[in-house]
C-alpha cells in the first residue's frame, strides 16, 4: 500500500508531529515500503485464530483500594518545563 503525502500529513496531525514538505516525501516513501512489508501478512489465512495481546494470555491482577503514596508535588513540579502555583502551564486552552 503506497501512501501519498496527504496521508502522511493526516497521520502527522493525529500523531502531533510537525513535518516539513521534504520530510513528508521521505516518510511517504519509507512508510510505503514498510507497509508493503506488512502486506505479507495478508497472504496468510488467520480465520478463527484468536488475536494474542499478552504472551501468557494472562488476566488482570487486582490492587487493593488503598492510598499508598503521599503528595510528591514538589518533586514532580520541579522537573516540569512551565509551572505556576503548582499547576502545569500550557498555551491557552479554549473549550
Amino acid at each position, binding site marked *: 500500500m503506497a501512501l501519498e503525502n496527504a496521508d502522511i500529513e493526516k497521520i502527522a496531525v493525529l500523531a502531533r508531529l510537525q513535518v516539513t514538505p521534504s520530510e513528508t516525501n521521505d516518510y511517504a516513501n519509507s512508510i510505503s515500503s514498510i507497509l508493503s*512489508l506488512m502486506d505479507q501478512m495478508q497472504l496468510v489465512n488467520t480465520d478463527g485464530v484468536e488475536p494474542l495481546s*499478552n504472551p501468557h494470555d494472562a488476566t488482570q491482577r487486582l490492587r487493593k483500594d488503598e492510598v499508598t503514596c503521599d503528595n510528591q508535588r514538589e518533586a514532580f513540579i520541579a522537573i516540569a518545563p512551565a509551572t505556576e502555583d503548582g499547576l502545569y502551564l500550557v498555551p491557552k486552552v479554549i473549550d
Partner: protein
Amino acid sequence: MTHKTLVQIAKDLAAGKYSSREITQDIIADIKARDAVYNSFISLSEDLALGQADAADARIKVGNADILTGVPFAHKDLFCTQGHTTTAASKMLANFVPPYESTVGQRLLSAGAVCVGKTNMDEFAMGSSNESSFFGAVKNPWDLNAVPGGSSGGSAAAVAAGLVPAATGTDTGGSIRQPASFCNLTGIKPTYGRVSRFGIIAYASSLDQAGPMCQTAEDAAIMLNAMAGFDEQDSTSVQQETPDFTAELNLPLHGLKVGLPKEFFGPGLNPQVAECIMAAVKEIEKLGAQIIDISLPNLELSIPAYYVIAPSEASSNLSRFDGVRYGYRCDKPENLMDLYCRTRAEGFGTEVKRRIMVGTYALSEGYYDAYYVKAQRIRRLIKDDFARALSQVDVIMGPVAPTPAFDLGSNTKDPVAMYLEDIYTLSANMAGIPAMSAPAGFVNGRPVGLHIMGNYFAEAKLLNIAHQYQQVTDWHLQTPTSNNVPVSNQEKGA
C-alpha cells in the same frame, strides 16, 4: 580491572583486595579515559555511584554483603534512575531527571550493586544498530567500523570494551541478544513478565523485557537473580516463583534435546555465520545433547507482525512526551497544537517519528483490523509454532542475526533492510519465551552469537547450556584487545 568478570570482582571485594570505592573510581576513570572512542556511555553518575560504593563497603565490612554488593555495573539509559538523568537517548528527555527508580534498578541497588552510569542506545530503543541515538552512534569495540548492534548497543560496547563487567539491557525484538551477538557477550532476554517493566521507559509494552548483558553465563545468572521477580506495580509481571538462576549452571547436558529450525538456516543466513553456529551445536552435541530438525513455519511473518505491533504500541506509549510535565518543550509555542507538534517534531529523531507514524496509521480507523488485529492473530500462530516445537525439544538453537555486525551507516538509508536483520530474534518476543545469545566464534574478526531459546520460565536451562558450553570453549573469554583474535579491519577506519 579491564575484562574482569562480575564473579571475579565479587571475589576480590570479598577478599578485601580492593574496596568498592576503589574499583568504582577506577572504572569511572577508565570510562572517562577510553569511552570517547566507543561512545558507549551517555552519562556517568559518579557522585551517586561513590555513595553506593561506600554503602556497599560498609555492608561488606559488617559481613552483610550479597554477591553483587559493591560490584559496578551500568544501566541502559532506558531505566529510570532516581536523581540521575534518564534520556532514552532522545533529545526529548536529554534533561529528564526522574524522581523515581525503576524496579530493576531498585532491586540491583538493594543487592548493593553500584551503578556507574547510563549507556547509549537507539533512541527509545528503536533500532538494531545504535545509530539512532541523539547522543551519536556507538562503535563496536571489536571493529570500530562496525555497529555494536541495537538497541542496547551502548551496554554491549561498554561490557565488550571491558569498561564495566555487566550492564542492563532491554529486548523488544532482539535488543539484548543482537548486540550481545555483535559484541561477543552473553545476554539473556527472560520470559515476558519475569522482570518488572516498572520504571523502564516503554517502547512496546507487550514485547519489552529487560535482562542482563555480561561476559559469561554465570555472570548473567547472577545479574538475573537480582533483576527478576514479581512486581505488584506491573500488571504484566508474572506471579511465579523466581528460582536461583545459578542453581542449574553445572547440570550436565546429557539427553538434552536441541531443535534446529530449518527456517533459521535459510538462504538469508551468512554461510560463515552458519558455520560458527553449526560448530557450536556440534560442541553441545558432544556434551551429550541430541540434535533434532524442527520447523517454525511462521517465522518469516514475525517481521511484518512485529513491525505492526511494536510501532502501534509505541505510537501510544510515546504520546505522553508532549512538553507539558517533563522533558523537552519547544520554544515559545503559539498555541496548544504548536506546542505538541513542534515539541514532538524537535524532540524525537527520524526513526522514532517514523515508527510513531507507522503505528498511528496501523491503529487508525479502517486499517486497525487489517494491520493490528491481523498482526495479533499472526502473533498467536508464532506462539503456537513454538509450543509445538518445544513439545518435541527442550531448547531451540540457531543464529541470533543473519550476519555479523554490519558496517556503520550501511543500513541507515533503508529502514526495511534494517528491519529484516531482526528476522531471528523477533519471534521470541512475539511468543514471550526466554532467549539468549552466547559467544560462538568470529567471522572476519566480528563476533557471532549462538541463539538459545527455551520454553516459558526456562531461563535456568538456557543459562545452564550456555555455561556448560563456556566450560569447553573460550569464545566468551576473547576480548577486543586479546592477542589471539585479530582486531580486524583497523586499517579501514579508526
